[in-house]
Each structure stands twice: as C-alpha cells, then as structure tokens.
C-alpha cells in the first residue's frame, strides 16, 4: 500500500519527479566528471612510462634539458652500469591536438625492461628502410582521438617544422596521446641527431644509480613521478573538486526545493493519512523510500552524464596541463568500478540527507493541525541563529586554520548560513516592489507571491546561491586575469626579448647583443631545476628592470642592494607560501657546486607557475648558470623606438651565421601569449561556472513550474472570476520575472562574498598566488542577471501556457 501511495502520486505529477531527478543527476554529473578528471590528471604523466618500461623502472633525466650523447656514453661505460634504454620525447601537434612522439630502442624496451606487451609484435613494424614516411605505432585511444587508422599517413607539427609519419602498427593501451618510434628513426625524422631526453633502467639498478649518478642528472622511479604529478596538479585538482562540490550542493538545493514543493502539495494527503492511522514512522519510511529511489535513479543518470562530461572536460584542460605542467593529458578518462560505487553511494546519501528536513517538517505537526492549516513559521531568533551560527563558524575556521580545506569548508558554512537569510530579505524586496507597483495587474501579481512565501523560500535560496556562485566564479576569474595582466605588463621592462628555441646563449652572444648601438642595457635570465626539485633562476638585471618586481615582503631597495652584493636570494610568492619563507629566513639550496645556504631577502609576486622559484644573482653563481643564458632582455637607448632597435638587432644577427637561430619577441606579444595561456587554463573554470549556472536554471525552472502547478486552482479561480487568458499569461510572467529579479539581486552581494573568498583565501591556499584586493569586476553581473531574467521569463511561459489553455472548471476541480 505504501508503494501504491507513492506510485500513485508520482504518476499524476511526473514533471516534478523529473525535475527532482534532473537536479540530483546534474549535480552528480559534475561531481563524477571532476572525480574522473582528477584521476586522469595524476595518471597522465606516467601513462607512457608505465606502458613502455614497466612499473619498477627508473627514469634518469638531465636537470636542464636533454642528456648529452657523451654523457650517455660515459654512463654506459661505467663498471656495473645497467642496460640503459635511451628515450627521446618530442612534443608535437596534430590539428591542434597536443601529442608526444616517443623514440626508443624498441627491441631493448620489449625484451629487457618492458613489464608488459605494449610493443609486442610492433617492434618489427617500426624498422625503416628509408622509403616513404617513417613508421610509428599508435595506441587505440590516440587513434580514436585523431580519427585515424593503421597505415594512414599523419602530418605532425614538430619543433623544426612539419613531419610525415606512417601509422605502421597498433601499440598497446596506455599510450594516450603518444606515438612510438624507433629512436634513431625519430632523431632523423625530426632533425634531432643524437638527442636523448631520458634513460630508462630496470628497478634492480637503483642501488648502482644512487652511487654513480653524476651531477646534473636526476633519477626518479615511477612512484616518485606519480607523487610529483600529484603535487604539481594538487592546486588545480583542489579547485576542480571545490567547484564540483559547489555544483553538487546547488543540485541538492534543487532537489530540496522540489521535494519541499511536493511536501506542500501532499501535506493534505499526509494529514489525512496521519488522521486515519498512518504512524509517523510509516510516513517517514515512505518518504525515505521515495528519496532512496530518487537518489538511486538520479545518481545513475549522473554517473552516465558525468562520464561523458569528463571526456569533454579533459579536452579543455589538455592544453593548460601541457603548458603549465609539461604533462600530456590522457585521451580519455578511465573510470574504475570502485569510484563509480563510491559516487553512487554519495548521491543516494545526499538525496536522503536533503529529504530529512522535509520529512521532519512532515512529522512535526500533529495530524489535526495539518488537516486544517499550515505549520507555524520559525521564530525570528531561531532563524537568526540558523544563519548566524554557520556564518560565525565558517569565518572562525578560515581565520584559525590556514589550510585549503578550511577555506573551502568555511565558504560552505558561510553560504549555508546566508542561504537561510535570503528568503526573508527577498520577499521583503518583493513586498516593497508590490506596494510600489500600484493597484494594477503587475502590482497584484507581485503581491500574490507573498502568499506563497514559505513554499517559494527554498527555491529562492537555491536560485540565488547558484547565480551567486556562477557570478562569483566569473568575478574571481576576471579579477585574477586583470591581476595577471598588470603583473605581466609591470614585469616586462625590456623592449625586446631574445632567445634560442633549443639551446642556451653563450656569454659571447650576449656581449654581441649588448654591443648593438640602440641597446642601452641588457638583462639575462638562466633557469634550471635543482636536485631537490627547486626551480632556480639566475638574473643579471639593469637598474630599469628592478621596477618590474612587485615586492610582497622586504624593502625593495634593501632587497636590490643585498641581491646585487650576493648577500641573499629573493623568493617568489608560491614558493614562499609552500615553504613558509619570509625575509630573514635561511634557505638551503643544493647547487651544482655544492650545498649552500642563503638568506631570503624578499618575496615577490609571481604568477608564472604555482611551484614558485628562487631568484639569485648570476654573478654569485658558478657552473652552467654563470656561463650560459636562456633569455636576454634588450633595453633601448632613450629616444630609440622599438622598430629601430629591431632593425639593428636583425642586422647584427644576420651578420653572424652562428646566431641565425635566435628569435625575439616584444613585451606586448609576451603579454598576449601569457593571457592566452591564462584563458586556456581557466577555460575549465568557465566551464564549471557555466555548469553551476545551468543547474541554477534547473532550480529556477523547477521552482517556477512547481509554483505554477501549485497555483493552478488559484489561477482557475481568477479565470472564473473574469481574468482574461492574456491577463493571466501576463500575471504569471510578471511573477516569474519578479522572483528571478529578487533572486538575482540577492545573488549579487553573495557573489561578491564568493569572489573575495576565492581570491583572498582559496586561490592563495591552493596555488600560492595572492590577488590584490580591489573592487570585483561587474561583467559577470551584467551578463548573468539579464540572462537569468530572460530564462526566467521563458520558464514562466510553460505554466502560463498550460494554465491559460485549461478551462477554468478543470482547474477548480484540481486539488
């Protein structure tokens, strides 16, 4: 009988059941998509190593680029040396898709080092006789991504230009976005003679490697690489998780909103059932069973949608993951059964959790009162406590605990507290608007909303919060973009920047550039990664360059004086946050010439990476960094324009054939490229903001449709009394617009709260970047509010059309 009661109701109101399903499915889809994406970000790095060389292999790489062939020869000749497998990794693009060509000694990899059969059978096919395009093996995921099959000829964009390859064989799984070739053939095809990116060795050689590895080379096991990938992408994954949980919370609000409406619709039935003998326990069990079914079906739908969403999101982050972290994203996410099971349980539990307050309301009032009238509203002091306590707890948590989880948890609590205040404020605004609108239809329409306060309150909260989240994320992204723009423009003080694509510049080349007539001064930058993973950048800076640093700690003049005298180093903000460094602290660095200790002189703003780096005076440093330069900044003589400088530079380079590979770029172009990287990086954040906004629209549609259904009898009464169909249409549209406008107005201040929480707490704690506190950008408000109004009006059309068409008598009979 219990099942019949539930089934009977939902058969008569399928639309509302469907809305609740959509709400939970939408939220679960985003959570599933991001969960799969998180795993893919960590798995990306070692997919190839795992597939090619086995789980326990060790990868040896040079700290500053490729391994010189003589170094390889030296290592191979040492007594007890393992059987090294030289590997060449070449970044390439095919039609805008980032790939990697992996060149290796296929026979060696298969027989001696390989832990699986990734290349079994393919080795022979990769031999090249010199006729036709060189052969490569392609994995099924990559073939699917590119839409190609075996024997096709692929044109790739490599470092030195386009290269054609023939897809001669199908490699095993796990080689996402990678093409495998014989290393010698790859070196020839891509004009990289003798180039080696890394050496692979079996895990059994670990002891020998630790004892014999020379300076400048680093060895890492697969697990260490995986840990590094996890650390590298921790900030990005944390951000994605936070946004996905916000999306789920919004989806659950939709569910709560719809379930509340259903409760109101069924209150009379519940009252009768309680009156004639349904116990509170029976009623609670019935409602919980319904929410179990809702949660199960919604979660299943969400898992399916989320899996599809994950592959779409993966496509969005492929570029930034490559640009920022130097890793290749997987072609497709690889869902695990345990993850699906965990997400399914999360969805079901979330649906039940949302049902609990609805069930409590259903059970709280005695049957007699339920049959007669609605339950009493919460006392004001209870309402203020419900708002104030979570807000206070959230703020305290953020203040006391400096971890990222505290920022996210604190934001959740603050938003939960604010959510209880939104409805009374919103309906207060509507009351004022209704009075001001006068006695006509518009004013009446708005005033009628007041009678449905309690019913519309959850929907108003849900919609306001979702709009606030979408706008707040948009404000954070745009505000951050403006900060990055300001930082880049401030930092780039030189008139031109010169570098060589595949090598460092020698000191003599720098001197020749400095000797150009139009050049007043030069700056040099040399970067390398130390043995402990710290990024070190050696600078020689003229006076004009120092104004480019935005000092967050330390006196600028003192920092410069100390830096130039070799008294210490400067540290970028992300590194300072990660290691808790401040001016005056000691920093130990494992330099090529030995371990040295430096004093931290100052901390400067840096958005180039979330790992951060140490800046040091190049003249205080021996070894490679002192002798070579990665990039030179040219500062023009006063009164000389960039064009003149560029002409003289071109002439100087043309006169010397050894410098023919040097390239130059201006600060404006670097700025444009930086912002392009930023935009690509935050595409996924925009995507998440759009998803949250989409769920907000579901909340809006569900609330307005349910409100329309709830008011069907009232509207029918108005029609019976003489309201024309067009007037009724206008009345409903005015009501939906008023609700949407109220929600949007409430959302704006909450969006500002979200913006500052993301910019001042979450971003710094996730990525190590601080953003100057300033007024938030208004573009998201200008875009989201009108869009919400348009969509709100459209949402009102559906109930307006249905109710308008219905004969008044039918509506009067409806209960």
């Amino acid at each position, binding site marked *: *009988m219990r099942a*019949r*009661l539930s*089934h*009977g*109701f939902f*058969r*008569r109101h399928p639309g509302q059941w469907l809305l609740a399903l959509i709400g939970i499915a939408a939220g679960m889809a985003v959570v599933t998509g991001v969960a799969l994406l998180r795993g893919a970000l960590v798995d990306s790095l070692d997919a190839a190593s795992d597939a090619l060389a086995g789980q326990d292999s060790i990868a040896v790489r040079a700290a500053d680029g490729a391994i010189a062939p003589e170094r390889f020869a030296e290592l191979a000749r040492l007594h007890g040396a393992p059987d090294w497998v030289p590997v060449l990794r070449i970044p390439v693009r095919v039609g805008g898709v980032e790939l990697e060509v992996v060149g290796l000694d296929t026979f060696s990899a298969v027989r001696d080092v390989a832990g699986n059969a990734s290349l079994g059978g393919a080795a022979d096919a990769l031999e090249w006789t010199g006729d036709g395009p060189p052969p490569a093996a392609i994995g099924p995921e990559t073939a699917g991504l590119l839409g190609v099959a075996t024997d096709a000829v692929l044109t790739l964009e490599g470092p030195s230009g386009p290269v054609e390859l023939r897809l001669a064989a199908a490699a095993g799984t796990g080689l996402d976005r990678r093409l495998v070739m014989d290393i010698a053939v790859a070196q020839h095809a891509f004009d990289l003679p003798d180039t080696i990116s890394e050496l692979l060795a079996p895990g059994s050689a670990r002891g020998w490697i630790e004892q014999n590895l020379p300076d400048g080379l680093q060895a890492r096991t697969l697990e260490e690489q995986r840990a590094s990938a996890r650390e590298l992408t921790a900030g990005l994954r944390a951000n994605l998780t936070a946004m996905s949980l916000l999306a789920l919370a919004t989806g659950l609000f939709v569910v709560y909103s719809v379930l509340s409406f259903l409760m109101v619709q069924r209150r*009379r*039935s519940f*009252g*009768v*059932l*309680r*009156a*004639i*003998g*349904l*116990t*509170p*326990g*029976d009623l609670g069990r019935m409602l919980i069973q319904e929410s179990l079914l809702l949660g199960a079906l919604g979660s299943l739908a969400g898992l399916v949608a989320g899996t599809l969403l994950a592959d779409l999101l993966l496509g969005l982050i492929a570029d930034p993951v490559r640009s920022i972290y130097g890793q290749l994203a997987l072609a497709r996410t690889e869902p695990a059964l345990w993850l699906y099971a965990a997400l399914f349980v999360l969805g079901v539990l979330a649906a039940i959790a949302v049902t609990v307050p609805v069930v409590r309301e259903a059970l709280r009032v*005695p*049957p*007699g*009162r339920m*049959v*007669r009238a609605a339950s009493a509203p919460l006392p004001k002091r209870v309402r203020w406590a419900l708002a104030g306590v979570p807000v206070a707890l959230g703020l305290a948590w953020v203040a006391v605990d400096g971890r990222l989880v505290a920022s996210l948890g604190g934001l959740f609590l603050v938003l939960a507290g604010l959510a209880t205040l939104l409805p009374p404020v919103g309906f207060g605004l509507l009351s004022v608007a209704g009075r001001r609108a006068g006695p006509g239809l518009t004013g009446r329409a708005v005033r009628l909303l007041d009678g449905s306060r309690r019913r519309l309150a959850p929907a108003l909260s849900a919609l306001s919060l979702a709009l606030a989240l979408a706008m707040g994320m948009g404000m954070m992204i745009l505000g951050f973009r403006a900060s990055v723009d300001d930082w880049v423009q401030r930092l780039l003080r030189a008139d031109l920047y010169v570098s060589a694509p595949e090598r460092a510049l020698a000191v003599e080349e720098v001197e020749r550039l400095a000797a150009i007539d139009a050049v007043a001064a030069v700056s040099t930058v040399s970067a390398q990664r130390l043995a402990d993973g710290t990024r070190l950048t050696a600078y020689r800076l003229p006076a004009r360059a120092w104004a480019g640093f935005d000092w967050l700690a330390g006196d600028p003049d003192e920092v410069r004086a100390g830096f130039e005298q070799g008294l210490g180093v400067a540290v970028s903000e992300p590194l300072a946050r990660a290691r808790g460094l401040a001016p005056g602290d000691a920093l130990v660095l494992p330099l090529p010439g030995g371990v040295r200790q430096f004093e931290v002189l100052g901390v400067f703003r840096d958005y180039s990476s979330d790992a951060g780096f140490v800046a040091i005076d190049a003249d205080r440093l021996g070894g490679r960094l002192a002798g070579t330069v990665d990039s030179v900044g040219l500062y023009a003589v006063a009164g000389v324009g960039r064009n003149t400088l560029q002409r003289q530079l071109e002439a100087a380079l043309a006169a010397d054939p050894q410098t023919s590979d040097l390239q130059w770029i201006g600060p404006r172009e670097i700025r444009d490229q930086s912002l392009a990287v930023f935009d690509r990086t935050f595409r996924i954040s925009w995507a998440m903001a759009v998803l949250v906004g989409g769920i907000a629209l579901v909340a809006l549609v569900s609330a307005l449709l349910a409100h329309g259904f709830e008011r069907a009898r009232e509207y029918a009464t108005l029609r019976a009394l003489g309201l024309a169909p067009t007037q009724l249409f206008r009345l409903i549209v005015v009501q939906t617009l008023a609700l949407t406008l109220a929600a949007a107005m409430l959302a704006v201040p909450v969006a500002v709260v979200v913006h500052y929480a993301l910019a001042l707490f979450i971003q710094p704690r996730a990525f190590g970047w601080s953003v100057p506190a300033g007024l938030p950008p208004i573009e998201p408000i200008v875009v989201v509010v009108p869009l919400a109004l348009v969509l709100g009006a459209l949402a009102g059309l559906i109930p307006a059309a249905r109710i308008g068409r219905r004969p008044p008598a039918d509506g009067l*009979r*409806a*209960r």
Partner: protein
Amino acid sequence: MAEADPVLRLRGLVRRYGEGPRQVPVLDGAELDVLPGEAVAVMGASGSGKSTLLHLAAGMDRPDAGEVRIAGVDVHARPEPARTRERARRVGLVFQDYNLIESLTARENIELAVWLSRSTVDPARIDALAGELGIENLLERRPDQLSGGQQQRVAIARALIHEPSVLLADEPTGSLDRRAGDQVLDVLVEAARARGCALVLVTHSDEAAARCDRVLALRDGRLVPA
C-alpha cells in the same frame, strides 16, 4: 437492564490557542459520554470549537487538560506510534471535504483503512459495504471522477470498513447540496447504528441533528443540552 459502558468518554477537556495574554480557551472543561450504537449531534456557532473537540476525541491533537477514553483506553496517555495505531483500529473519521487520497481509486481508498488498522478484510466485505452505501459501481473510479456525494460515501465506507468503535463525522454534509446531504446522512447514521458504532456528528444543520439520539450544543467551551 444494565447500562452499557460508554465507548467514548471525554472528561474535563481543555484546549487553548495562542500564547501568553492572547491565549483563547476554545474548550474549557468539555465532557461527553457516548454509548455503543448511540448517535450524538454536536452543534455550535462557527469557531465554537466543534472540530477541535473531534480532533481531541480522535487523538489527532493534544488537550491542555482532560482525558479521552475510547473503549476504556486513555488515548492521550499513549505515546506515538501507539496512539495513532489505536486511532486506526478504533476510530473512523469522516471529514467535510471528504479527504480521499486522489491518487487512489475508491476501492484503494477503502483498502487504505484496512491496511492502516493492520487488520484483514475479505474483499467481498468491501463490495458488500459499497453496496450498502450505493457505490458498488464506483469502486474503480478515482475521486476526481466522482460527485461530492459519491466521494463522501466512499469516505464513509473508508471510515467503517475496519469496524471501529467510534465514528467521528465533522460536518459531513457541509460541502453537499441538500438532497445529496440527506442521502449521505441517512447512510451514515444507518450504517453506524447497524454496526453498534458510537457516532458523534458535528453539524450546523438542525435536520442532521434531528436524526441523532441526542443533540448537544458547544457553548463557552462546554457541551450542554441543545
């Protein structure tokens, strides 16, 4: 002949609404005894507390003072869910607005009472009761396919199917026209008497009250002979 014990006994019932100085006593020491098979009409002005009296008698609302016994059992001494189960077994309710479950057919609405009272009823008994009430051809219809009088008959069947001790009817003809109302009252009083069920009928109508064995008025929170 020995007098039977009352199956419904109300003693010193008090019920107030509101808070503090604005508190209003709706019932102020109401008392009532109803014997098995007896029909009692309760009349009174609007807002005099008639429906409140019924809700307290059914255990749907708690009195501020006083006692309600059905078949000797103190209704309000029992906690939930025992109180509700007792109501499901011993009380039949008929409302002014019928209050049928709209998603169920007439037959299912009647079966609902059987399920809630945790008893078993032969389907033939449902058909027999339906025949007695003149709705035997309407059992497969939903409430929105029935007239007001037909819905109220279904509601009466739902109230009687599980053989309750007490039948409480709150203005059962209030939403019906005179003819339909007369028909409903006839079947209601007849069916209750036939089953030895104590009937308390809240009504505005003198004609309805005239069908009962006793007529009481609710004045100043107490029941007095009309």
